């Protein structure tokens, strides 16, 4: 494993770094600095100079100018830049993955996985560059052609969260750039260094391919500099925001007020249903990754397990047993034996503790974990023992998303439709899963009367989505879709054209208009 210094050095991170770039050029700013502390040991990693309102204005103007050039660059040529970015990311996969771990706290395997997601979406976008297709439709008028095409949209604002500090940028920007848009990235102020490192990695690619300054922009800034003003800014054609429902609702209102476009990827309250027909070992193994992976800090982390009463005891016994094993593998996420790293900060630890207390206050029972670890190796105070609690779905704490490793066990009786009702009875609608070998149960879960979530899996957990599918959810999750499938359409504007190749002027619907 590389040392901290080696990781930073390979990625071009200094003690104090510039926080504003238009692609290849970096700008010194007069703003305050953001200090990035590692959740692993609480130590300072490095600092970043924040952008100011003047910097923001400069970036938007650069982006507007760059868009004029970029929108007329052929999509496969734009995608060649994305392909080269994918190659550069392959070259830097290990140090960038390690920095993700160092700055965010997810285990090294997940850090590498995050960079792999970036690479995968680059590959995906390259293929998609030649298939961002419209369609020809049958016209009702003689010698007329009716056609539909997709055009570049403009400036895409990308707001990312600490838990996937670079992958979400890649999901959005690989598609947006291929679609002919330009991007302005506001990374999480908790993980600015991974953003800087990513921009450093792509800098040479942009230079080599003469990509105009202003196509790939990034600003590390406080919400007082890039907050409501960013959302209200009419020059930002699309705001893609990954974060909490609270921030998403604010974004939805402010962007909606100016009739701008949004992609909102917000909170989840994801459940796994375990029916009497489940492969129990598969259900346990898969669900443990869903609950404790990334220390429960994924949008798709499993928050609730809805278990049939007939297999409840069997499942719980196996599940608790698995947690006993996991408990011995909590520690420094850079150590390859570790399965659960730290939470992002003390605030998250407090929220975890509050959730453990509250579920008991509401009548639940904690079956495992819930403690904050101390002693050698845990000095940062950010390490917790993942908790399992028996609860009922209507508890206030169960209805909320706690961004930490606490999972609620909920018993159901009768048919699978009862479990589905519990699955759907939360404000959020991101991810869901069912474990069953019964075709009727599985198909019911996937039917119109089934899960109301954006993601519904069978015999696979709630987290760990591939980039090939559209990612996102319903209700309080925001309704946006990112990444694969036809998510690219959100980054383009749709245009319908009628072409008359006759010498007559027939009007639609047969309307007569003679003068």
């Amino acid at each position, binding site marked *: 494993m590389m040392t901290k210094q080696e990781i930073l050095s390979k990625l071009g991170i200094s003690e104090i770094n510039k926080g504003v770039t238009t692609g290849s050029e970096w700008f010194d700013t007069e703003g305050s600095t953001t200090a990035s502390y590692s959740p692993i040991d609480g130590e300072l990693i490095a600092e970043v100079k924040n952008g100011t309102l003047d910097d923001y204005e400069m970036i938007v103007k650069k982006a507007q100018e760059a868009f004029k050039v970029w929108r007329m660059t052929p999509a496969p040529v734009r995608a060649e830049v994305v392909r080269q970015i994918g190659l550069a990311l392959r070259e830097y996969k290990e140090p960038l993955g390690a920095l993700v771990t160092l700055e965010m706290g997810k285990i090294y395997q997940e850090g590498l996985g995050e960079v792999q997601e970036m690479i995968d979406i680059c590959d995906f976008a390259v293929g998609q560059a030649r298939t961002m297709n419209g369609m020809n439709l049958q016209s009702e008028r003689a010698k007329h052609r009716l056609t539909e095409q997709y055009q570049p949209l403009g400036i895409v604002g990308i707001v990312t969260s600490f838990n996937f500090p670079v992958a979400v940028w890649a999901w959005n920007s690989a598609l947006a750039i291929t679609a002919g848009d330009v991007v302005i990235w506001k990374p999480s102020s908790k993980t600015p260094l991974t953003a800087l490192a990513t921009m450093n990695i792509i800098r040479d690619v942009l230079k080599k391919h003469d990509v105009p300054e202003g196509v790939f922009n990034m600003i590390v800034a406080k919400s007082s500099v890039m907050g409501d003003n960013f959302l209200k800014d009419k020059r930002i054609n699309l705001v893609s925001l990954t974060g909490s429902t609270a921030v998403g609702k604010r974004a939805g209102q402010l962007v909606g007020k100016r009739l701008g476009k949004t992609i909102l990827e917000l909170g989840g309250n994801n459940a796994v249903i375990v029916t009497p027909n489940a492969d129990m070992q598969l259900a346990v193994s898969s669900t443990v990754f869903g609950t404790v992976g990334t220390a429960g800090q994924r949008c798709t982390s499993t928050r609730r397990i809805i278990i049939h009463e007939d297999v409840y005891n069997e499942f719980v016994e196996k599940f608790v047993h698995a947690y006993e094993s996991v408990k011995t593998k909590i520690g420094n996420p850079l150590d390859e034996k570790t399965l659960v790293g730290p939470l992002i900060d*003390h*605030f998250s630890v407090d929220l975890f503790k509050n959730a453990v207390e509250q579920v008991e206050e509401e009548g639940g029972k904690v079956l495992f974990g819930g403690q904050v670890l101390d002693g050698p190796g845990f000095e940062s105070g950010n390490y917790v023992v993942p908790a399992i609690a028996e609860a009922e779905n209507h508890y206030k704490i169960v209805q909320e998303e706690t961004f930490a490793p606490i999972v609620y066990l909920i018993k159901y009786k009768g048919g699978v439709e009862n479990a589905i009702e519990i699955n759907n009875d939360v404000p959020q609608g991101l991810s869901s899963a069912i474990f069953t070998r019964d075709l009727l149960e599985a198909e019911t879960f996937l039917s119109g009367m089934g899960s109301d979530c954006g993601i519904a899996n069978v015999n696979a957990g709630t987290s760990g989505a591939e980039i090939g599918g559209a990612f996102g959810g319903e209700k309080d999750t925001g309704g946006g879709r990112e990444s694969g499938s036809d998510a690219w359409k959100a980054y383009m504007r749709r245009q319908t054209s009628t072409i008359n190749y006759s010498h007559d002027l027939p009007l639609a619907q047969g309307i007569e208009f003679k003068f």
Partner: protein
Amino acid sequence: MEINKDITIEELIEKYPFSVQYLSKKGIRCIVCGEPVWGTLEEACEEKDFTPEQIEEVLVELNELSKQNKNKTNDDKTRNIIETRNLGDQ
């Protein structure tokens, strides 16, 4: 007053970390999904239907807590949070 109603939640958390627990006890979540919510303290209070008088009370209490915390070092953060909780309980 040092802390006023126009302070952003992000700045409040950064400069006055004890505010998170205090406001949590008042039903206001400053951090969701690990990130600060956007907007000002006043907006966060209004979202929970606080009256102008209640907002004023929050400001007075937060500033009182700030005074208590001023001379303490970062190492005392944990103790501060416990004290904050107690005040928030009242």
